[in-house]
């Protein structure tokens, strides 16, 4: 009997009770679906994740990909799992029927993916990258590119990657130096070096299609001169047959702290042999096209962080129920049995903190996934527009907050295990190492903070920000009208107005030309906004849980489930939300402690 890695009851709660997945089936795009198909998909995801992904999570970590005679060797369980994932139809689940997809709502697809992320984040990275690349080709590829590259990806035959990072261009994508020269045959020849490329080379797929950012010779400097290219490992003829090996070659592997199941590579383009690429989307629009894929990837990274936090929470909960140690303070008799540690107040503190981070973030992650659906399929134009704006402003939050705070949850999960948590006999140390990547990739959390404060908050004349505050206030007002939750409603409304005042103070500095001061403490701004967003998600859950708990016919386990939701909400409001007051104060003071430090003073 394995330790649970996801809580199906909570999946059901968030998917159906909180976010009303069934409503989506009323929209023409999803008409073939209903609650039954959603639940059946979740169930298959659960079983596959448990049987074929969780089974080798540790093995992938211990026997990481290695180079054997120039080829990347990966344990066979990885490909077996990906093949089963593909055979079950998950690669194309959300795609149009005409591309062999099931037109599954994004919300349900993300909820399915969550199971695989919780079970084995290293293995699911390959399908994850492949699906993101396929989506990008679907949006910007020519019909011929879709047929030759995207279709085999959706069939699980080709894998995809995203190649942005270079040694001198990590956060600073505008410094990308890989060059593309247009040949007389209308195709481009690429030269350059890419680093940290996940899934960049291996033998698991018939072909790998890299989506590469490069600069066409003569293009302007900076981000506006970048274009996107499809660069296959093996060239692909017009009819889809594989041609010779392309000059995109492995230059080395990177050895990591965690996430070891996903091979990390250094790749040389066009060094020994020519590297042929095809332009995807318009010239010089590469970054915009890539961001199409990055934005959903960022929600995906947030979800990955959440699910690792969630798996750690459940593992430590299981451990706390089964490990006996010590006696409660009031028990003075040493002859009495030791108590399961879940009886200790400090252990409950660490469990409740984890619960509040991971379940709060899980609700936010799926809320954002639902926005992706609403943006495309909400019945009214206004609904689609508002969903797009909310999604834009929430994207840096849903990427960064969980990758900090669900990592914190992993730290607490280790702590609950005591010395055993520090050993490789329990899964929690791996959760921590795996999760430690998430604040770094897909744009570091520092970059997310700049994106939030520097761009998203003021985009569309501040409309996205106002919309977010409006949504938060609607929840706060609803709660404040209910006696039992009114103090929480008032607290959330106050925090939201604090956020507005803080934003105004920061904008005033910006408008005075103090741009450095305006952005200096952006990380704290993101944390403040994140805490408020999570408090909002908790209050939404609490409102619902309270209504549901009024049902007298409830089973004892449902009753405990809803009571747990209310308790976690109260915890978050008592322990976490008040932190935003200090953060707001610090931000409004435009504190320069960090900014004014000079190199020599450290």
């Amino acid at each position, binding site marked *: *009997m*394995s330790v649970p890695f996801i809580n199906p009851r909570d999946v059901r709660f968030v998917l159906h009770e909180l976010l009303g997945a069934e409503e989506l089936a009323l929209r023409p795009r999803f008409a073939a679906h209903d609650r*039954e198909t959603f639940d*059946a998909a979740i169930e*298959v995801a659960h079983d596959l994740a448990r049987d074929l992904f969780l089974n080798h999570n540790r093995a992938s970590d211990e026997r990481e990909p290695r180079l054997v005679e120039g080829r990347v060797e990966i344990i066979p369980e990885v490909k077996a799992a990906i093949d089963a994932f593909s055979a079950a139809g998950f690669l194309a689940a959300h795609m149009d029927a005409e591309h062999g997809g099931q037109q*599954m709502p994004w919300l349900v697809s993300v909820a399915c993916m969550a199971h695989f992320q919780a079970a084995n984040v290293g293995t699911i990275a390959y399908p994850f990258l492949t699906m993101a690349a396929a989506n990008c080709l679907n949006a910007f590829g020519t019909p011929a590119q879709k047929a030759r590259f995207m279709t085999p990806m959706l069939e699980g035959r080709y894998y995809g990657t995203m190649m942005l990072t270079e040694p001198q261009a990590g956060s600073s994508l505008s410094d990308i130096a890989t060059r593309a020269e247009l040949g007389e045959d209308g195709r481009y020849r690429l030269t350059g070096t890419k680093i940290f490329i996940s899934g960049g080379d291996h033998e698991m797929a018939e072909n790998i299609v890299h989506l590469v950012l490069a600069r066409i010779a003569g293009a302007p400097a900076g981000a506006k001169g970048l274009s996107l290219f499809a660069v296959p490992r093996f060239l692909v003829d017009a009819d889809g047959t594989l041609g010779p090996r392309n000059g995109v070659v492995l230059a080395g592997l990177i050895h990591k702290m965690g996430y070891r199941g996903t091979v990390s590579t250094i790749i040389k383009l066009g060094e020994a042999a020519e590297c042929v690429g095809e332009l995807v989307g318009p010239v010089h629009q590469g970054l915009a096209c890539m961001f199409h894929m990055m934005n959903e990837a960022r929600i995906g990274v947030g979800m990955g962080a959440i699910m690792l936090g969630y798996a750690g929470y459940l593992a430590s909960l299981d451990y706390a129920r089964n490990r006996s140690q010590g006696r409660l303070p009031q028990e003075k008799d040493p002859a009495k049995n030791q108590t399961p540690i879940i009886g200790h107040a400090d252990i409950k503190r660490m469990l409740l903190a984890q619960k509040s981070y991971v379940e709060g973030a899980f609700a936010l992650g799926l809320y954002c996934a639902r926005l992706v659906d609403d943006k495309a399929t909400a019945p009214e134009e206004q609904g689609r527009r508002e969903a797009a704006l909310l999604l834009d402003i929430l994207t840096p939050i849903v990427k960064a907050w969980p990758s900090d705070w669900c990592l914190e949850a992993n730290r607490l999960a280790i702590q609950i295990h005591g010395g055993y948590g520090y050993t490789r006999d329990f899964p929690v140390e791996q959760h921590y190492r795996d999760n430690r990547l998430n604040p770094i990739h897909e744009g570091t959390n520092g970059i997310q903070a700049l994106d939030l404060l520097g761009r998203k908050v003021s985009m569309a004349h501040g409309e996205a920000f106002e919309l977010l505050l409006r949504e938060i206030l609607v929840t706060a007002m609803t709660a404040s009208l209910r006696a039992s939750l009114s103090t929480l409603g008032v607290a959330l409304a106050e925090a939201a107005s604090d956020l507005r005042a803080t934003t105004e103070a920061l904008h005033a500095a910006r408008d005075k030309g103090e741009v450095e001061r305006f952005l200096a403490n952006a990380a704290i701004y993101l944390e403040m906004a994140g805490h408020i967003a999570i408090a909002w998600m908790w209050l939404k859950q609490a409102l619902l849980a309270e209504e549901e708990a009024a049902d007298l016919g409830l089973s004892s*386990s449902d009753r405990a489930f809803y009571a747990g939701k209310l308790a976690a909400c109260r915890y978050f409001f008592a322990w976490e939300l008040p932190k935003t007051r200090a953060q707001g104060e610090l931000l409004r003071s435009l504190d320069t402690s960090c900014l004014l430090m000079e190199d020599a003073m450290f």
Partner: protein
Amino acid sequence: MKILVPVKRVVDANIKVRVKADGTGVETQNVKMSMNPFCEIAVEEALRLKEAGKATEIIAVSCGPVQCQETIRTALAMGADRGVLVETDVPLEPLAIAKLLKAVAEKEQPGLILLGKQAIDNDCNQTGQMLSALLGWGQATFVSKLAVEADHVEATREVDGGLEVVKARLPAVVTVDLRLNEPRYASLPNIMKAKKKPIEIFKPEALGVDVTPRVIVLKVVEPAKRNAGVKVPDVATLVAKLRTEAKVI
């Protein structure tokens, strides 16, 4: 040839079952329910026979509360063609299920009935045998290898001493064991197709079967906790203990 595959809804094999506080049974509220693993193997075998051209139609049948439709849908999503639910909230004993299945078999006239050798909830291991007797058909139980010919099956059975090969004339009842095959997972395209496949619903009365339980459950309790073992310093002590304390040698 039609194949009838009975499928049972049980607490998922990966769940730690807990006895209800009032001792009337095990907790099934908010517990993941799945198809009995042996039934999955039976469905898989039927699908393989159909894929090999030996069967034309697979009918999944389940007896129990309305939620058993989910179990039937799982079979349909694996590839079965249609479903039959005998709906009742009465707790069903093996004999009642065998009688219901007999009635369904008489309506459907399958050439083969493939069942799991037992269900993991009560581990009775009775339904297939009773069904065979009620129908007057041959039976092969605990089957780990199955060949279906024009008028008979040749089945390899797992028995205590090893493997036994038996032939049974068709129509026959076959109950399957763990090593027969590895069942496939449902796929999203098949889940969508399964939605359009019909499930017929009957009540036991309509089939003329009395399902009233004949066994009264007095109490359900957790198994006694196993005490920790003791370490003995050497073989001689072990032998002495086995002789004097355990009295087994």
